[in-house]
C-alpha cells in the first residue's frame, strides 16, 4: 500500500511535479492536465502540492455508477479504467479533497495512479517535497485530520448545547 507523502515546508512552488505528471499523461508539457497541482499561498509564504490521498474509503470509487474506479493490487492506488468511465463526473463531485479531475480532451475522469509505483512527480521534485510513503492512506495526514475533526466536533457540540 503506497501513498504520496507531501512536505509543504520543502516546496518552492516550481511546479516541476505538474510538468512531470502531465508529461506522463500526455507526452507534452501541459500542467492543466496534471493530476498533482501546486497551490500557492503567497501571503502566507506557503506552497502545497496536492494529489490523491488514495483513501481507504474512497468516495470516488463508491460514487461511480459504472465501477470505473478500481484498486491497483500492487500499489493500492485507486485507478480510473478509461474504457469503462462514462465521464459523468460524479466522482469529481464526491471527492472531498478535489483530487480527481475531469479531462476535457479525453472526456474521462483522471486521477493519480501512482505511476504504477514509481511516481514521476517524486523524481521531478528538486527539494524532496514529495516522497513515496508506505502504509495506511492518510497516515501522514492524521494530525491534520484530527485537527479538522476536532474543530468540527467542537463546532457541532457547541451548536447542540
Amino acid at each position: 500500500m503506497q501513498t504520496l507523502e507531501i512536505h509543504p515546508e520543502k516546496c518552492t512552488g516550481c511546479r516541476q511535479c505538474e510538468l512531470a505528471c502531465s508529461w506522463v499523461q500526455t507526452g507534452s508539457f501541459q500542467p492543466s492536465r496534471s493530476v498533482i497541482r501546486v497551490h500557492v499561498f503567497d501571503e502566507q509564504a506557503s506552497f502545497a502540492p496536492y494529489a490523491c490521498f488514495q483513501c481507504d474509503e474512497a468516495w470516488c470509487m463508491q460514487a461511480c455508477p459504472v465501477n470505473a474506479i478500481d484498486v491497483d493490487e500492487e500499489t493500492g492506488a485507486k485507478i480510473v479504467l478509461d474504457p469503462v468511465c462514462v465521464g459523468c463526473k460524479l466522482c469529481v463531485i464526491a471527492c472531498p479533497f478535489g483530487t480527481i479531475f475531469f479531462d476535457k480532451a479525453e472526456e474521462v475522469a483522471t486521477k493519480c495512479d501512482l505511476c504504477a509505483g514509481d511516481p514521476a512527480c517524486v523524481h521531478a521534485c528538486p527539494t524532496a517535497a514529495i516522497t513515496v510513503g508506505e502504509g495506511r492512506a492518510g497516515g501522514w495526514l492524521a494530525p491534520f485530520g484530527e485537527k479538522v475533526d476536532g474543530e468540527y466536533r467542537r463546532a457541532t457540540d457547541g451548536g447542540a448545547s
Partner: protein
Amino acid sequence: MTAGGWIGSVLRVDLSSGEIGREPLHGDHARDYVGGRGIAARFMWDEVEPTVDPFAPENPLIFATGPLTGTNASCGARYMVVTKGPLTGCLTTSNSGGRWGPELKFAGYDVLILEGRAEKPVWLWILDDRVELRSAEHLWGKGVFETEDILRRETGIPDCSIASIGPGGENRVLYAAILNDKFRAAGRSGVGAVMGSKNLKAICVRGTGAVPVADPRAMMAAQWEQKEVLSKAPLTSEGLPAYGTLALMNVINEHGALPTRNYQQAQFEHAENISGEELAETRLAANKACFACTIACGRVSRISDEGVERYTVRTSPRNWKHATEGPEYENAWSLGADCGIDDLDAILKANLLCNDLGLDPISLGATIAAAMELFEKGVLSEEQTGMPMPFGDGEALVALTEATGFRRGFGDDLAEGSKRLGEKYGHPEVFMGVKGQEFPAYDPRALQGMGLGYATSNRGACHLRAYTVSAEVVGEPEPMDPRATDGKAQLTVDMQNISTAVDATGLCVFLTFGNTLSDLTPLLAAATGIAYTDDDLVLAGERIWNLEREWNLRAGVDPGEDKLPRRMLEEPIPSGPAAGEVNKLAVMLPEYYRARGWTDDGRPTRDKLAELGIG
C-alpha cells in the same frame, strides 16, 4: 514551423481599434533569433520606425517567450518585454519570470504584440483561444496586488496569471515596471510606463494547452543532465537557495565594489545588516521558485513587527504584515547601501511598495540616492523635497517611494530618473548611469569589466547583459583580475552574446552560474528539432546584439553615449580594497569595438550586418 518548443503563433492586439489577430510565427526568424528578446527585436526591426516617441501609439509593446519557456527545462519561466524605453530612448528588453510566460504558451501563443492606444483603460483577457478587451476603469489607480485580486475574482479562475501595472505605469514614471504574479517584474527602462501610455492596465492569461517538444526522449535525457549540473554547482545548489541573490551583499562589499551613498564610496560600513545572511536569520519566510526552476533563489520575507509600525504610508498596502517577495541583491543595494540605509525593514517596505506601485527599485533607489546627495550638499532644500532626506533616512525612502508612484510633490521630480533630476537642478554629475538608466550594484571602478558592460549595454546601464562579476569576483568560468583591463573587451563581448542567447531561449540567465551553453543546446535541439550547436547559439546572440545596436543608432542613440559618468573616470574610490581606482573605459572601449568587428567609432559595419543576415 517545427515540431516543438515554439507554439508557432503570434497574437496581435490593436488597442486603438480593438482588433485581435493571429499570425504564424516566422519560421526562419524563430530559428535565427531563437525567441524572446531576439524574435521581438526582429519585430521591432521589421515594423517600427526607430525614431518613434516611446509614448506614441506606434511604439508597440511586445511580450515574447522562448522555445524553452513552459517546458520542464530548469528555469524555463522567462518572457521578455520589448519596446522603445522612455527612460533611455533605446530598444529595451525587460525580462521576467514567475508563471506568466509559460501560461501565455499554454494558451497557445509565443509572442503577444500590443499596438495603438485604447481610448479608455482596458485589460486584456486571454483564455486559450478566447481573447477579449474589457474595461479597466474600475482598476485604474489601483496597486498591482489589488488589481490581481480583483481580476482573479472577476474571471473566476484563480489559476490565471496576471501581468499588470500600478500607479507608477499609469502616471508614466519613466522607470515604471510591469509586475506579474504580484512580485516578479519586467523591471527596467520604463516598460510599465509604455503600458500605461496605452491605457492597458493588465493582461490576464490562462492556458490549458500544451507545449510540445520534437524529440521527447532526448528532451528527458537533456533536462536530467541540465538539472544534475545545477544540483552540483556551488552557486546554484547552495549559495542562491540559501541566501538568494542577496548572497552577494557581503561578498561585493568585501571586494570594495559596493557602491555607497550614490557612488561616493565603494564600501558600506553596515553592509552586513542588509545581507542575505541577516535576512535569512531574521526575516526569511520561505524560498520561492519561478515556474520550473530547480534553484529557487526567490526570497519570501516578512517585515518585522517593529518595521510594520515604523514604516507606514498613506496608501495601500497599509501596515502590510504578510509575507512578500524580495528583496533581490540589486534592490537591497539601491534602496539600502546606495541610500546609506542599513535597516532591512525600510528596504523591505520600499521594495514592497515598488512591487505594488509598479516601479523599478534599482532606478528608484538610485534616483533617491542622487537626490540625497543633492540634499546633503545643500542644492535641494527641505522646502523643495517636502521632508529632510539625508543619507540613511529610511522614513524618507519609504515616503518618497510612495510619492514617486503617484508623482506627488517631489515624487514628480524623482519619477523622471536621476539624469533628468540632476539636469533640472543644475547638477548633472550626480547621475550615476549610462544612456539615462541608473547603474546597478557594482562599482565599475573596482570591477573594470562591469564599466565596459554598463557603457556598451544596449538598454542602458545593466548588470545582466554582461555579468563580468562572474569572472572578476566569483572566478567563473576563469578568474580574472578585477582591476586589470586586459581581456575585458573580449570577455564582455562573449558574455553579451551568451547572455543574449540564453535570454532568447526563454531560460533564466542565473542558470549560467552552473550550466554552460553545452548543457542548453541539447535542450533546445530536443525541444525544437533543430540541431543547434553552441556556436549557433553564440551567433544568434551576436545577431540579436548587433540588431539592437543598429536599431539604437537609427533611433539617434549616438556611440558617444557609450560612456561613464565623470565620477567613475576621474574620482578615485576613496577607501577600501579598491582605493585609488578609476575606470579605464578609454582603454577598453576601442578594444571592444574591434572585438565586435565594428568601425572605430562603434558602428556595426555593413559586412558585419550582412554576415549576420540583418538587412
